[in-house]
């Protein structure tokens, strides 16, 4: 390497693609195929956006990650969950129910306020937020609070055309017979547009369809 290049590098005037730093600290998602595409897993802090329908496995995909986040002894907070969370399922997945808070705010403002307080306090590891209306400024504010409190905020929204928010990671989930198909919409310090199919066969064998050839499933219709 010539002396000029070395000098420019030292003065931080030259940027090289191959020594790029990760934009965030990654925590394994528990799914090897996902980890490989996301540079190690989900970000440990900051905003994660999931565009997903309800009930297709969006929470199951996050559970190993949430369990690791909670292992530090900090809280897991569910804000405005769509229905009554089930203790059996959470406990079976290894979530510590003693460090779990459920908040049911009255309106969108209260919801965002609660999320910000939780993130900012530093005593929460992860906050899950269902169906908020988020403006760009509000998302930025939550992102800052999350970085300050070293917490992660997972925003679950219906798939739609949204403005791009300042998030660390944005994923679109769609249902597949064997699990989920994950499309990376945005990744800080990485490429978007990749699609990963993840299989739930290992973690949730009962919640996967068998091969279509062996489909002996019953079909029930409401009567």
């Amino acid at each position, binding site marked *: 390497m010539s002396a000029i290049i070395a000098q420019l590098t030292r003065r931080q005037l030259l940027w090289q693609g191959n020594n790029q730093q990760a934009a965030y600290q990654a925590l394994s998602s528990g799914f090897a195929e996902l980890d490989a595409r996301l540079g190690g897993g989900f970000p440990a802090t900051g905003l994660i956006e999931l565009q997903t329908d309800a009930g297709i496995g969006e929470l199951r995909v996050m559970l190993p990650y949430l369990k690791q986040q909670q292992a530090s002894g900090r809280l897991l907070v569910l804000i405005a969950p769509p*229905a009554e969370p089930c203790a059996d399922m959470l406990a079976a997945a290894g979530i510590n*129910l003693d*460090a779990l*808070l459920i908040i049911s705010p009255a309106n969108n403002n209260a919801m965002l306020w609660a999320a910000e307080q939780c993130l900012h306090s530093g005593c929460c590891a992860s906050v899950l937020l269902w169906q908020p209306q988020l403006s760009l400024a509000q998302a930025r504010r939550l992102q800052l609070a999350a970085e300050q409190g070293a917490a992660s905020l997972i925003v679950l929204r219906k798939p739609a055309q949204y403005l791009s928010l300042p998030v660390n990671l944005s994923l679109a989930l769609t249902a597949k017979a064997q699990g989920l198909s994950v499309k990376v919409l945005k990744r800080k310090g990485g490429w978007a547009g990749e699609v990963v199919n993840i299989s739930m066969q290992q973690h949730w064998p009962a919640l996967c369809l068998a091969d279509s050839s062996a489909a002996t499933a019953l*079909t*029930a219709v409401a009567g």
Partner: protein
Amino acid sequence: MALYLYLQLPSLLVDCVSPLPAKVPLAVADAQHRLVQLNAEAAARGITLGMSLGTAAALCADLQLLPYQTERQQQLLQSVAQQLYQLTADIALDPPDGLYLRLCAMLRLYRGLNGYWQVLYKALQALGYRYQFSCGTTPLAAKCLARQQLNLLSADSTGLSAALKRSPLVASELSLPLQQQLKRLGINTLGQLLALAPAELSRRFEPELLSYLGRLNGDFYHALNYIQPAPGFSRYIELLYDIADTRVLTAPLSSLLQQLSMQLKQRDALCYQLQLSLHFRSGRPAIVLAVGSAQGEYLPERWLMLCQLQLCRLKLAEPVSGLELNCDDFKPRQAQTAALFDNSVATLSPLQLVSLLEARLGRGAISSLSLQNQHLPELASRRQPPLWTQQSQHQKQQNQSGGGAALKPVIPLALRPAFILPSPRPLTEPVEITSGPERLCPNGWQLAAQRDYFIGRNRKGQWLWLYRTVSQQWFVHGLFS
């Protein structure tokens, strides 16, 4: 030798009005329209105690008047006594405006009268009331000397008794007719009276004179009713002007909280619950806010933040004229422990976060989840107060009583949905059943109410938890998120 200090606070009601914007003459008038208390500005304008309202108004047109409130005066005196209780063990009230402090037991602690006085002086300055005082060998002697504004500070009994002998009869507590009677006999000072033989006095005068002189001299025992520290905190402040905006309430509220935190610090205690009452002028019932902190706090800033969150939710129908802060019980402070090498960024503890959220969103909005040993899905998950395990541990530490039976850990059932619908909805779409049935029967083998559960997947790829009733109807009960 016994030594007492009498502390007279002649203008409590005037002094407790928070600092006025400009120099305003202020006086307190009693029911007979006599002035009983003055501030310095009023005295400078030539107004004296005992003057009638008419004269005072003629002398000074802009004189501001307050009515004399016996109850309030008593409260103020009581609060001064509570504050001084930190310095002196034995304090007795002498309503309306005096305090007896028994010094003889305290001098050793403070290494003499001077050391004691320095500490007391600082405390009195911090309270900000005007005062006059005197030492005396008996409570009544100290009172008599203090009434003359002698401000004597000495433990020398001969000097004190000489000063007592010089005292005019006006300074004593003898009734006016008695004083006049004595004056006609040519007795003008207490010294002359004390020189007379008691037997002679008892023959010519009422027994009250002899009993007074006996207590003054120390010949008779004078029982004083020493105060006990109050168990909680209760204080009321009248606002200078009515406040309609809850944000403006911050200033008077923070001064109340400062006083609370002083008291908590002195006892090394915390409190978990405050009652903040907003009083109105029109007799409308006061609004009472219960402000709670799950972890217990003593810092005024933290309490102020929690109070503000409650206040900003409040709509005031009319301006507030008074604030009252009550706290019933103090709890001993627990040392907070945290890991030394854990470079955490926490600015709040989990319990503090819960208090903060509850203050803004209301009690019911925050909860935790617990797993019950039940097979029915609607009974297996139970909402609990937020972080109830931590809170109950806290309480247990407080009570220092272990004893609670250790809970056997409940083993979660294998496959349950993430969300249970509060009320099952009828199934209206085609689904593909992948596993089941799992038969659940309500307690007591109510066979008619048993349900067969299946796991199904609909066309959109949603995983549903379905059940079929005995009458072959299908319902969606949960969602495998």
